C-alpha cells in the first residue's frame, strides 16, 4: 500500500467529519475529498509527499468545496444543510470529554449519522463503509451483490434522506447513546455478513470486504472502548473471519469439521478470546450484546478445539439454549439441532429439528438430509437433498449439496 492509500485509509472518516461540521453539505464533501485524493495521486509522486498528508488533503478538499459554493447560483433556492446545532455540538463535546478530543467526537457524529435507525439498514451499512472508511463504491456494490449504479444510487438516496428527514450530525444524550451504538453494531454486522452469505452467484465469500466491517467496528471501539455490544461483536466477527482461508478450497465450500485448522488465523482467535474476557461484558447486557456474546462463545468453542472430534458439543448445546432465551430465531434453533445431533446422536438431532422452517432457505432441508443419511435412511435423505437443492440459490453451495446427494 503506498503512502496516499494509507493516509486515505486511515484518515478518510476524520476528514469527512471535519468537512461536514464545517460546511454541512453532505452532497459536496465526498466529491471534494475524492477530487483532493485524485490531485494528490498526481502531484505527490512529482513534488514528494507533504509533511502532513492529511492536512494537505483537508486543505485541497476545503478549497474544492469553497469553489463549488462560489459557483452555485445564489439566486436559486439554497441547498438544504445538514442539521448540526451549535448548542448540541458543545453538549456532545462535553459528553465525550472522557473519551477523547473534539476531533474524535466528530467521527462519532459521522458514525451515528450513517447508522441512523431512520435509514434502511442496508443503506446505513453501505453509507458507513463509504463515509467512515472511504471504501470505494464498486467494492461496496460487490459486497452487497448489486450492480455498481444501483449502489451509487442507494448511497445518493441515503445522503439526500439524511438532509431531507433532518437526521442530525450529532451525538445524542448519554442516556440514548447505548441504544444508538447497538444500531451501529447491527449496521456493521450487516456489512460483515453480506460478505459471507447468502450469495446467489458464484462468488461464495467476499472476505476482504467483510474485513472492512471489522475495521468499522474497530474505529467505533476506538471512540467507545467499553461499549458491550461492540466489544462482543468484534469478538464474534474475528472468530468467524479467522476461518476465511479454510472455508473454500478450489472454489468449493469446506465444512467446519473438514477445514484445515492450521489455516485459521489463530492470532485473531486469541484476540477474540481476550475480548470475551473483558470486564465490560460481565455486567448486565442489552439483548443484542448478550446475543453477540453467546454467538461468540459458540464460535470460540469451535475455534479452540484442536481437532473437530475434540469439539465440546455439550457446551455448545448449552450456549444455544441460552441464546434461544435471549434471541429466539429459527436459525439458532437449526444450529442447536446440529449441535444436539453431534452431542447426543442422530435421532436426538432429528427430533430437535422437527418443526423448524426458514423462509427461502435450503438449510433446514440440508441438515435433515445429512442426518437422515447418517441414520442410513437413504430414500428420505435423497428426498431431503432434492428439496435443499431446489431451494438453494448459491452456486457453490448447490454444487456441494448435489455432490452429497449423488454420493448417497
Amino acid at each position, binding site marked *: 500500500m503506498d503512502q496516499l492509500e494509507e493516509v486515505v485509509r486511515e484518515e478518510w472518516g476524520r476528514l469527512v467529519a471535519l468537512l461536514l461540521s464545517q460546511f454541512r453539505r453532505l452532497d459536496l464533501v465526498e466529491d471534494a475529498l475524492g477530487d483532493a485524493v485524485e490531485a494528490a495521486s498526481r502531484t505527490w509522486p512529482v513534488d514528494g509527499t507533504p509533511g502532513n498528508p492529511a492536512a494537505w488533503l483537508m486543505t485541497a478538499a476545503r478549497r474544492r468545496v469553497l469553489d463549488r459554493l462560489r459557483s452555485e447560483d445564489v439566486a436559486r433556492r439554497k441547498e438544504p444543510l445538514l*442539521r448540526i446545532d451549535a448548542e*448540541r455540538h458543545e453538549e456532545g463535546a462535553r459528553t465525550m470529554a472522557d473519551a477523547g478530543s473534539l476531533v474524535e467526537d466528530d467521527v462519532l457524529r459521522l458514525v451515528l449519522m450513517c447508522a441512523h435507525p431512520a*435509514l*434502511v439498514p442496508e443503506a446505513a451499512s453501505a453509507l458507513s463503509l463509504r463515509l467512515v472508511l472511504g471504501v470505494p463504491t464498486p467494492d461496496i456494490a460487490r459486497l452487497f451483490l448489486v450492480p455498481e449504479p444501483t449502489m451509487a444510487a442507494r448511497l445518493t438516496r441515503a445522503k439526500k434522506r439524511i438532509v*431531507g428527514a433532518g*437526521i442530525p450530525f450529532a451525538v445524542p444524550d448519554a442516556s440514548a447513546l447505548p441504544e444508538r451504538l447497538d444500531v451501529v453494531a447491527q449496521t456493521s454486522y450487516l456489512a460483515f455478513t453480506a460478505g459471507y452469505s447468502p450469495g446467489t452467484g458464484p462468488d461464495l465469500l467476499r472476505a476482504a470486504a467483510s474485513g472492512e466491517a471489522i475495521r468499522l467496528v474497530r474505529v467505533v471501539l476506538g471512540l467507545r472502548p467499553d461499549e458491550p455490544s461492540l466489544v462482543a461483536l468484534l469478538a464474534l466477527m474475528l472468530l468467524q473471519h479467522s476461518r476465511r482461508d479454510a472455508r473454500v478450497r478450489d472454489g468449493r465450500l469446506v465444512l467446519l469439521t473438514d477445514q484445515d485448522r492450521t489455516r485459521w488465523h489463530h492470532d485473531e482467535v486469541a484476540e477474540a478470546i481476550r475480548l470475551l474476557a473483558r470486564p465490560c461484558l460481565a455486567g448486565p447486557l442489552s439483548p443484542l450484546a448478550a446475543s453477540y456474546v453467546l454467538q461468540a462463545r459458540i464460535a470460540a468453542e469451535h475455534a479452540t478445539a484442536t481437532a473437530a472430534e475434540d469439539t465440546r458439543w455439550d457446551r455448545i448445546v448449552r450456549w444455544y439454549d441460552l441464546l434461544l432465551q435471549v434471541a429466539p430465531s429459527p436459525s439458532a434453533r437449526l444450529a442447536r439441532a446440529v449441535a444436539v445431533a453431534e452431542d447426543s446422536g442422530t435421532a436426538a438431532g432429528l427430533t430437535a429439528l422437527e418443526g423448524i422452517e426458514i423462509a427461502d432457505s435450503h438449510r433446514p432441508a440440508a441438515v435433515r438430509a445429512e442426518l437422515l443419511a447418517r441414520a442410513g435412511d437413504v430414500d428420505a435423505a435423497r428426498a431431503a437433498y432434492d428439496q435443499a437443492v431446489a431451494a438453494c440459490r448459491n452456486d457453490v453451495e448447490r454444487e456441494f449439496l448435489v455432490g452429497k446427494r449423488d454420493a448417497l
Partner: protein
Amino acid sequence: MKYLVLLIGDGAEKPWPEQTEAEQTAAMAKFGAFDAACRARDGIELLAGEALSDSRDATVMRTSVDGRVALTDGPYTEVIEGMGGFYLLEAPDLDVVVDLLRVLPAYDIQIHPTIDVSG
C-alpha cells in the same frame, strides 16, 4: 371545532414538477386566495398550513409494548385511515423530535419535514 385539512394526491392537478411556471404561479395564487378568504371570514382562523416535502423524506416511528422505538424509512401508507391528530412543531432535527414524542401514547407517528416556500 378544529379541522385538519390534508391536501393529498394530485387529483385533477398535474404533478407540481410537471407544471409550467405559469401554472405553478396560478396554483400559488389559489393558495393565497384561500388564505385571504379564511382571514376575511368571521370565526375562521388558519392555525397552521405547510407544504410537505417529498414523501420519501418521511419517517414512521413505532413504539412496542416494552417501550422500544423502531424507525422506518418512508411514509405511513395507512395515514388517512389512522390519522388521529397532529402537531406542528419547530425542532432542530429528527432526533430531538423523536425524543420529545416518546412521552406520547405509543401511537404510530409519521414525522414529516415541511419545506420553506416563502423564498
